[in-house]
């Protein structure tokens, strides 16, 4: 996997998640960060830090990105969400526009 095709998402606690750029683009917010011309340092380094999103939630978000790509291509599997994660995940989804 070439470096240009991946992006690093960093959680509040500093955990790093390296995922496909294509998957990360499911989030409108990340898409804007990565594609907007000029300005964002994220565009250059392919790193995005989320000081508001905990590791557990960010991991779940990454899983969702991949699930969403599959779902869009017609593969209907269940995406299980643990009840205790629902609130945080919902807020992260709202922030990430996904």
């Amino acid at each position, binding site marked *: 996997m070439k470096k240009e095709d991946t992006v690093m998402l960093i959680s509040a606690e500093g955990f790093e998640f390296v995922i496909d750029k294509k998957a990360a683009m499911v989030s409108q917010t990340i898409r804007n960060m990565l594609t907007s011309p000029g300005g964002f340092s994220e565009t250059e380094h392919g790193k995005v830090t989320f000081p508001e999103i905990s590791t557990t939630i960010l991991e779940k978000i990454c899983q*969702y990105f991949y699930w*969403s790509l599959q779902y869009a291509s017609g593969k209907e599997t269940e*995406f*299980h*969400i*643990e*009840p*205790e994660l*629902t*609130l*945080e*995940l*919902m*807020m992260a*989804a*709202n922030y990430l*526009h*996904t």
Partner: protein
Amino acid sequence: MESLLERMCIDAATESAVAVDKWRRQRRTLERMPSHLAEALLRRLLQRRMLYPSLLEVFKYSVEDIDLSGESFVDAEWMAYLGAFRYLNSLILADCHKINNAALWNITGLTNLKEMDLSRCSKITDAGIQHLLSLPALEKLRISETGVTADGVVILASLSNLLLLDLGGLPVTDSALNSLQTLTKLQDLDLWGSEVSNESVRILKMFRNLSFLNLAWTKITMLPNLPSLTCLNMSRCAISSLFEGEGLKPRLEKVKFSGATICNISEAFQYVETSKLSFLDISNSTLQSYSFLSSMNAMTDLDLSGSGLVDGSVEHIARIGATLKNLNLNNTKVSSEGINALAGNVPNLETLLLSGTPIDDAAIYFLRMMPALKVINLSRTHVKGFMQLGSALDEVPSFSALESLSHLESLNLELLHIKDPALRPLANMSRLSHLSLRSVSLTNESLYHISSAEKLVHLGLRDTVVTDTGLAAFTPPPALEILDLRGCWLLSKEFVSRFCQKHPQLEVRHDLFETLDKRNEYTSPSRATTRTPKGKNKQGNSSAPPQYFLDQRLKYSREELLSLQILSTVLPTSSGQSNPLP
């Protein structure tokens, strides 16, 4: 509109009471939740009957707007928790019948509350209004059809920030209205069915921003000049003069004079600036002349149903026809000749209602010249479905004239004396999605003709003599969702149910199957009476039956119930000595 993930989170969070328990203690998270998410979650809990007063507490820092309208179980306990909602902006309690004066005491002092709807909470009286006075930010207040009297209305005068006040159906007197002159910011005022009269209408001039005024069912006959007015409802009033006086005239946009008595309409409209008027309803009132219509060049919606309109007056409608979109001529005396006068003059007309008029098949011919028509109602007219061509004896189906209307979506042909062959042209209507038929002379042959109307979604075939064999041979058009067979008395239960099984996607209505309504399976009665579908999450209804109103008896078998009954009759005697049961 929530995103897919947000929606899935809400689904997971409201899946069961256990799931709720898993997140309800995450107070920090709940406190900083964006209001629209918190509201979506709350709405879903309400829909699924999982919301109860103490659970409301978790939303007290996040929710700004809450709509509990029509929820009959909302009572003082709910209000006690709502009173702690620090950022509450809007509280809709319309049709919450358990809400009484004491319940309102709980929400006193909510400094951010801007909107309050207590419509039809019949237990609210003047004493309850006292509690509302402590809501300083209140801008919108609806208390129509409550138990509030004129005395209660008088004390509203101190809510000086009010922009909207709905006092519909309350006995507001002239002196009560007089005392409201302090509410100078008012934009919307609803006084329908009140006791106000010409004595106090002058006060309305004090409301310099008044844009919406509803005086239906009152004794008011004249209005002073109200320059800011845009919407006026004076249905069922006897109108003599409007806006007489100096200064700029109001530019009315919507006017409802349904069932009003207007002695001289030209005189009544003399001072009305009508260049912006786009919606006019003068149904069910008798007018001598319709020439006043001629200057209303912005008209899009015109309702003259039940008025004495005759062919001779149609020319006045034709003159303003260029902008017309919806025209209701139900139950007027307009005949085919009148339709002829309209034809060619209404290029944008989308809806034309002609039910109960003396039009015949010739009118259908003229409808061809109204190219934008989407909805046509020809029920209860003299239309027979066939037209004589020239002097020859051969007849052609008149509905074939409608084939050229490429936008036609809905056609109502109920209660006409038509026969099966008349319906043959319907198969060629490419966009027709709603068709209503109701004639005892229609048979299986009609079903056959209709089956090739590809876009049909709703088909009504009431009171026809369709038989079991006809139904069995019927192949529903692919898009069909609803088939209304009420009154088709020749159909047997066996065949209808077999048909339903064969076409499970269809909602079939028949007298023998009143319960076959698949859509409403899980909707409880209280939900059905709510005015508007709440919120944005439409798919919420589909999931799980209501959990809080399950009849407890369902848990027990018949035998168990019987033994319980015996137990309950035995218990009082055995525990009569105040011995606590083991």
